[in-house]
Structures are given as C-alpha cells and as structure tokens.
C-alpha cells in the first residue's frame, strides 16, 4: 500500500517534469524547429489522451 503511494508520487513528479520540459521546448528555448516539433508532439499526445481515455462515462 505504502509502495503504491510512493509510486504514485513518483509518477506525479515525472508527469510534472515532462510538463515543464514541454513548456521550455514550446517556448523556444531549444530553437524554433524544436519548438514546432514539441508543439506538434504535445498536441498529438493531448489528442491521443483525450481520445483513448474518454472521461464522459467516468463516475464522479
């Protein structure tokens, strides 16, 4: 139980770091080509997550 909680925290932190990395890429820190590629990848990932994990039927 405790391990799964720790794992969840690790996943949360990893997701946050990925988010920060995407922000830095999209804002152009690594140059325009990387920014365009980062934006395309982020949008693609967002569309995939929204399509693959539909939330409308989830319990609130």
């Amino acid at each position, binding site marked *: 139980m405790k391990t799964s909680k720790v794992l969840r925290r690790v996943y949360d932190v990893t997701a946050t770091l990925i988010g920060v990395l995407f922000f830095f890429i999209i804002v152009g*820190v690594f140059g325009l080509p990387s920014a365009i590629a980062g934006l395309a990848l982020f*949008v693609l990932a967002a569309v995939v997550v*929204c399509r693959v994990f539909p939330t409308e039927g989830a319990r609130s």
Partner: protein
Amino acid sequence: MKLDPSVLARIQFAFTVSFHIIFPTMSIGLASFLAVTEALWLKTKNPTYLQIYRFWLNIFAMGFGIGVVTGIVLSFEFGLGFARFAQIAGPAIGPLIALEVLTAFFLEAGFLGIMLFGLHRVGPKLHFFATCMVAVGTLISASWILSANSWMQTPAGVAVHDGQLTVVNWLHVLMNPSWPYRLPHMLTAAYLTASFMVAGVGAWYLLQGKHLDFARRTVALGTAFATVLIAGQVFIGDMVYGTMLKYQPSKMQAAEGFWEKQSQSPAPYYWFIIPDQKNQRNRFTLGTPHLGSIWLTHSLNGRVEGLKNTPRELQPRMAMVFYAFRIMYCLAMLMFAMGVASLWLRFRGTLFNSRWFLWMLVFMTPSGIIATLAGWYVAETGRQPWVIYGILKTVDAVSPVPSQALLSTLIAFVCVYAVFITAFLIFTFRIIRRGPVEAPVYAEASGSIKNAFRPHVLDSPKRLADSQFS
C-alpha cells in the same frame, strides 16, 4: 485643481476599451464553442450537447450585445478624445473599421437572430449554419480590428507629408508586420477564455454534485480545448515576443525589468521589481538566476537589453508594462500546468474526482479574461509615448476639448458601464444557479427558411413552450 485633457482622454479610452474587450473576447470564444457543441449534437444526437448549447447561448447573447454597444462607443471616442489621431490616422484606420462593419457586422446581424431564436423554425442544419456564420463573423471582426491596432503598433504602407498621412500600399497597411502574429495570439486568447469559463462552470456543478452529465461533458470539453490551445498560445506568444522585440524593442525592454543597456550574464528572470523610472534603476528585484538568459535569449549566458537603450523621453512606464506582462505570462504558465494536469488526471481516470483540480478550474474561470486584459495593457502601455509607433505621439493626438467635457463624459461612462456589468453579472450568475434545462433530442422543425415562416412552425405549441431558448 486643473486637469490635463490628455490624461483624462487616456483614462477615458483606457476605461472604455478595457471594459469593451472583455465581451468580444468572450463572444469570439463562445461562438466557436457553440458551433463545436452544436456540431457534436448533430453528429451524436445526444441531448446533453443541446443542453450545453442552450445554456451557453444565453451568456453568449448577453456578452455579444454588450460587446457591440461598447464597441460603437469607441468609434465615437476617437472624435471625443482623440480627434487629431482620427484626422491623421483616418486614411489608414477608417477603411479598416468600415470594412469590419460591412463584412463582419452584416454577417453577424444576418444570422444572429436565427442562432438565438430559430432552432425550432429553420431546422437543425440551417441553424448550425447560422451558428457557424456568427462564429465566422466574430473572427472576421477580430481580424479587421487587430489589423487596425497592429498597424498602430507597427505602421507600414503609408507616407507622411507635411503632417498628413497617405496610404501608399493597402496590402502593407492590412498585413503590417505584427498582424500575422497578433491575430492568432488574440484569437487563441479568446478561445482559451471560453474554454476556462466552460470548464470552470462545469467544475462548479461537479463540486456541488448537480447536473452531472452536463458538468462532466463541459469539463471534458473545456479542459481538452484548453490543453491544446494553451500549448499553441505559448508558441505563438514567443513569436509575438520576437516580433515586438524587433519592431518595438522599448516595449520588451520594459516588460523584462532591466535598465542597463546590457544585463549581467547570465541574466535572471525577474518576478517582482520596484522600478525607479526617474533614476533609471530598480530599487528592489526578485528573480530566478539564469532563467532570464534561458527564456529570453535561449542560451545559458545570454544578456538581455535594458530600457536605457531607448532615449528617456521615448520610454514607456516600466511598472505598467512589466506587471501587465508578468500577470499574462504567469497565468499562461498556470493554464499550461492545468492542461498538463488535466491530461494526467484523464490518463488516471480521475478527472472528475480530483477536488483540488475542480476547485482550481473554478478559480481559473475568469483567467482568460484577466490574461487578455493584461496582454492588451502590455500592447498599449508598452507602445507609449506613441499612439502610432514612431509617427504620432499620444499627447499630440488628443482633441482640443476642455477637460470638463472629458471628465463629465468619463463619469457618465463609468455610471452606465457599472449598470451594464452589474446586469451582466446578475443574469450570468442567475443562469449558472438555475443550471441547464432539459432539452429535446431533435429540433422540431427542419428544412429551409421558407419553412420557418409557415404557420404550423410559427404557432407550434412546443416551439412556444421552448421560446425562451433555454
């Protein structure tokens, strides 16, 4: 006490335009959101989408109405407060505003009635077409206005002879250097505003345990749109930054809070400063080391240009530009974080259960409006002391009218607009408190406009019962 007419004219215009911009931002975003929602309803026949449509249509209608009225006021204010600006800039700006009326307003006026009252008269497909036309109208309107405003930021296609401005290339006026970046920046801001409004209201219902199907769909739609849009906005924002740095360096120098011609290396990113414009220095700074170089020069040790690169008499007020920019930028970062969090929560299947996230969405409901206002303050205060950058100074643009006339009209505007905003907020909160109303799966009528005026459609008991369109 003697009041300066140029200060009063600026305060009046700042007040009326700040009030105005809230409503077009909402209506541009909501019009497209309504078009998407109606398309989803037509595709899925799920009545919840029609519920969402009808719910937000009410708020859109009020915002649209106030936006139009307060926009007309601005045109009159060119004469009241800035007659010299109108006289000099008229040859370039006038046709753009006239074209906005001829193209966007006529299109919107033609279809708005069908959109608001025609669902049970013209049938769903024609009604959807009307919604799309209104949404397109708002886009066209924004595009003309952004063209006019961007021309004031980066004037092109004109020649000045004896203080008189002549257009030499209309294409250059229309597609001036900052317009291709500022237009998508503004449109994305409007869509983000609508996305966070929609998601925030849905989150509020989820926290209250009310209208759950409606709430889940609006939170799902709002966060999905917001996530994609904010990524695009961060990208476009960086492009706008680069463009303004090229054409209006003083604005970006003020926005970053550096005074010296070259900052230290590596440059920090300032979050809080107390600028001393008189002595051209900061009394206090709070920033993150290295981040300024990384974000602003895209290198580890880059130096950032300060405001001393601009002659003192041509500098904007640093405090206004800096804090407006920080508010906009910090809200953008918060929106990006919310987008990433929403994806993560979707992935884990807890988007509707995470109360902290839902509360954050509720608090973020007006974030798009605040960020848009802050962005416009950066654009307008950062351009000072110019009203048309490099061509006409603001102090030379005001009308030769007595300060009493400007003060009395300013007081009148404040009073009338206070009534507008109070009425808007009261009715909006009432609509939110009441919640969405059950909607039929299909619209009653179908077919053409000709069908809409047939007696059985006009006098249909069901239509009459639904005539309040909510």
